[in-house]
């Protein structure tokens, strides 16, 4: 069975070849913009427009782009993720087969959650541990979710609601 990463690398390879609807879209719709860090590139797709508009108003506008939060730090994984998302999003964009409002997949949610620590590790050391360490006495010491309280930092939700768990 393929590891998660291997599977995504495979798709990454796939989209390299401009064949099939996914590939076609990938280039036409500047799906390649997944490989840049320019948020406007994401907004190439109108379905990303709301998030772009919200991001422009967000506290992170000046400090974090889409990819800072939506792709992992590890370089290989980063491009794998981008290619994979680029592939799926292009495909779904073309087929129009996706929920609206869009819902983040657990895999990408986890990436977003971890990305917080790329920049904020320091400030949360005290609350995250010592006791949050996996080795801690409390076996169910799961990692804490940042978005539980800060879900809106990248692109606030309408109505002042909270992002949820």
């Amino acid at each position: 069975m393929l590891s998660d990463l291997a599977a995504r690398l495979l798709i990454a390879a796939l989209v390299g070849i401009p064949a099939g609807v996914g590939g076609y879209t990938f280039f036409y719709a500047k799906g390649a913009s997944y490989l840049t860090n320019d948020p406007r590139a994401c907004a190439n797709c109108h379905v990303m427009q709301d998030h772009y508009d919200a991001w422009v108003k967000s506290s992170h506008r000046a400090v974090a782009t889409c990819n800072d939060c939506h792709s992992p730090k590890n370089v290989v994984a980063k491009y794998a993720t981008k290619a994979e998302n680029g592939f799926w999003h292009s495909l779904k964009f073309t087929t129009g087969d996706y929920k609206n409002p869009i819902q983040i997949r657990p895999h990408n949610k986890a990436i977003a959650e971890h990305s917080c620590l790329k920049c904020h590790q320091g400030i949360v050391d005290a609350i995250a541990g010592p006791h949050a360490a996996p080795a801690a006495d409390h076996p169910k010491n799961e990692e804490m979710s940042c978005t539980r309280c800060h879900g809106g930092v990248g692109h606030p939700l309408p109505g002042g609601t909270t992002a949820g768990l």
Partner: protein
Amino acid sequence: MSIMEHKEEARTPYQQVVELTDDTVDPAIWGRNFPAQYDGYKRTVDQQRTRYGGSEAVPRTPTQADPREVVAQSRLKEDPRLAVMWAGYAFSKDFREERGHAFMLEDQVFTERQKAAKQPGTCLHCHASVYVPYKQAGGGDLVKGFEKLNQMPYAEALKHVKHPVSCIDCHEPKSMALRVTRPAFIEGIKAAKAAQGVKDFDVNRDATRQEMRTFTCGQCHVEYFFKGKEKRLTYPWDKGLKVEQIYAVYAENGHKDWVHARTGAKVLKAQHPEFEMYSQGVHARSGVTCADCHMPYKREGAQKVSDHHVRSPMLNINRACQTCHKWPEEELKARVESLQERTYLMRDHALNALMDLVKEVEQARARGVTDAQLANVHELQRRGQFYVDFVEAENSTGFHAPEEALRILGQSIDYIRQAQLALRDVTTVPRAPK
């Protein structure tokens, strides 16, 4: 549809196929310029049940008098206590679950309530596209036409209308901007704003776009009564939108809808106070509008359009709720239903109390107790019954303002039980209501 077209669309929101004037009533014509909205609008014929809402399609054999092949389920059959609450009033003959806008005109024409009592032309204000008919009947003056039709018998007024609520009732044809076309709301909201200290409020001049996304619905989804022999449609908001403020208006003008057949009390019928109830809830407080939940945006290619298939959000949770609440659909459904269950449970307590009271008062009168002796009892029934009916008639089963609905039901229970006590010792002075 391919990406090429997506981009195409994005550039041109819509084609002006036909020219729309302020007299174009037929939605089909508007639909040629706005096919997406028109398609949604037509789908309001769909009938599907939710736990407490939507509606069930009940087949029936058409008759000369009533050609409808499908109606919504009877609420009187679902809960026989309602017929006792309304004993002696037309509602005790026929009361059904409401359904989509497409049916509003025929359902009003063919309800048994039309036979049970003579209805005025006023009724049409909220069941037909009356904007153009009012203007014509009034020789260009909307309000004059309104007053004219109010005073006609229903059957005669009916000849002036053709369509259920239509595009022109909510939209200004040139700009497509929202507008309010209903005189009773224009006057009602003016009074309500005045009560809050806002002078001379002209809804079409002063309301924000956000407010209009609620006011267009508030034109009809409200409590009302017919004032005087002119049968002028009136929204009882002079003191505010809360149940006690509305009741105070009826206390002052002494209005009664009918005399309760079994208790002799001069009682009131509450009707669909969605706008009033919603206004007391946390969503209204947060600036969330009727249209946000009942006409959420939906993507049609590159365009976002408001879903004109106005219906229960429980049939459309993803679009209606998940823009703001990132909870799974199942969880959102469960939240709504748990709020509705509580409302339903307390409604049950209140209606049971009312059943006890009606039975007892009926027996007392049989024993010869006079209406004079029953003055306190009657007043407590009038208030308590109006409160429970206010929540019963509000169609979200409490969701629009859960705490307000429960507060009202709690007080209703107190007043009705006190009526039973007052019946036992006609001397006791009931506590002053809060």
